[in-house]
């Protein structure tokens, strides 16, 4: 398949390549920032609490039924705590009589679904990495747009030019004579 190499602005094409490579690098940095967010978030209070509660759940299950009944009663109570700008949950269901019980916006499906707090948990450091990741993602997207745009501009037809291409080499003996 032979395509035209003429009519291409090589400077813009090269610029496009550099923008795409840069976008790729920035996306990789954003990926690392997200990974840090998830990792440091696991040291946050919520994540630690969830680990405690996993082991508390084991202990509660092994204990007598009054604990189980108390757990059930706790689940009926609904309090909504607003997080900073998204869904609802801040604190987890308490097992041993402390804290508030929170439930996400009810969908009437009978389930009491609790949205997690997000990758950062309650760790400010992790949240900072999350914000850095989003900023890097935006930058990567802008570089990506630039790369795609410059690639298109590199083959832009001149204004008023028609959509022509040099004729393919003819295999017809008749045209070879003209």
């Amino acid at each position: 398949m032979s395509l035209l190499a003429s009519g291409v602005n090589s400077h813009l094409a090269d610029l496009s390549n550099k923008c795409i490579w840069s976008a790729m690098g920035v996306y990789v940095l954003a990926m690392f920032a997200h990974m840090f967010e998830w990792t440091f978030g696991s040291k946050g209070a919520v994540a630690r609490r969830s680990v405690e509660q996993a082991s508390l759940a084991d202990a509660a299950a092994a204990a007598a039924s009054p604990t189980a009944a108390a757990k059930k009663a706790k689940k009926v109570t609904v309090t909504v705590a607003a997080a900073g700008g998204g869904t609802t949950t801040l604190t987890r269901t308490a097992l041993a009589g402390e804290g508030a019980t929170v439930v996400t916006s009810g969908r009437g499906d009978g389930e009491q679904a609790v949205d997690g707090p997000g990758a950062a948990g309650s760790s400010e450091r992790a949240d900072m990495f999350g914000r850095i990741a989003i900023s890097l993602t935006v930058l990567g997207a802008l570089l990506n747009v630039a790369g795609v745009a410059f690639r298109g501009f590199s083959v832009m037809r001149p204004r008023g030019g028609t959509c022509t291409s040099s004729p393919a080499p003819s295999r017809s003996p008749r045209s070879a004579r003209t």
Partner: protein
Amino acid sequence: MYEFSCAFALTTVGAYLILLALGKNVRWLGLPAVLAAALTLGLATSVLYTDSEQLVPALHSYWLAIHVSTAIICGGAFYAAFASTAVYLARESYDKRKAAGLPNGPFKIPASVFERMPATPTLDKLSYRINAMVFPLWTFTIIAGAIWAEAAWGKYWEWDPKETWSFITWVVYAAYLHARATAGWKGRKAGYLALLAFACFLFNFYGVNIFITGKHSYAGVG
């Protein structure tokens, strides 16, 4: 394919940023989105790269902007739904293990990772809504392609491999939406169907272009 991959990475990230800008609680989608974008660009710049060249005459049409752009936008949105479905399946698996008293999630991933994810109904709802919203655009993409095919090649539909796999992708997404709306499918069953649909989309883009020759073979690869 190089240009399509670059634009595909862009729409994948774009779908994520748009959801963030709309105030949705989707920061968890950041890692899958930039991971996919980085991998797609890596593949594009290494294996799929071709030098910038003028379009072949058959592609000189305003339909390029319509048909190809909508296909790329659909791809980005379908990926966001796919990521949401995948996270849903992981979280649902963790919820079952937690109910059974097991300490960690699937593949021994710590519980803290899953506890920070949105709840399964949220994830299920997000993937359903994105797929439902983008499905009409995918339908339009196929129809626009057919109209362009008539203008360029003289026939609306010739069961070219790309056309066929686009249609297969459409049927599987339609089956997913139909199963959810009519048969009331939700949960893992619907999730697997959504994964299958996105797999069809990926094969339509990568597999057909590289391994199967047809009228859509402009890429210069494979």
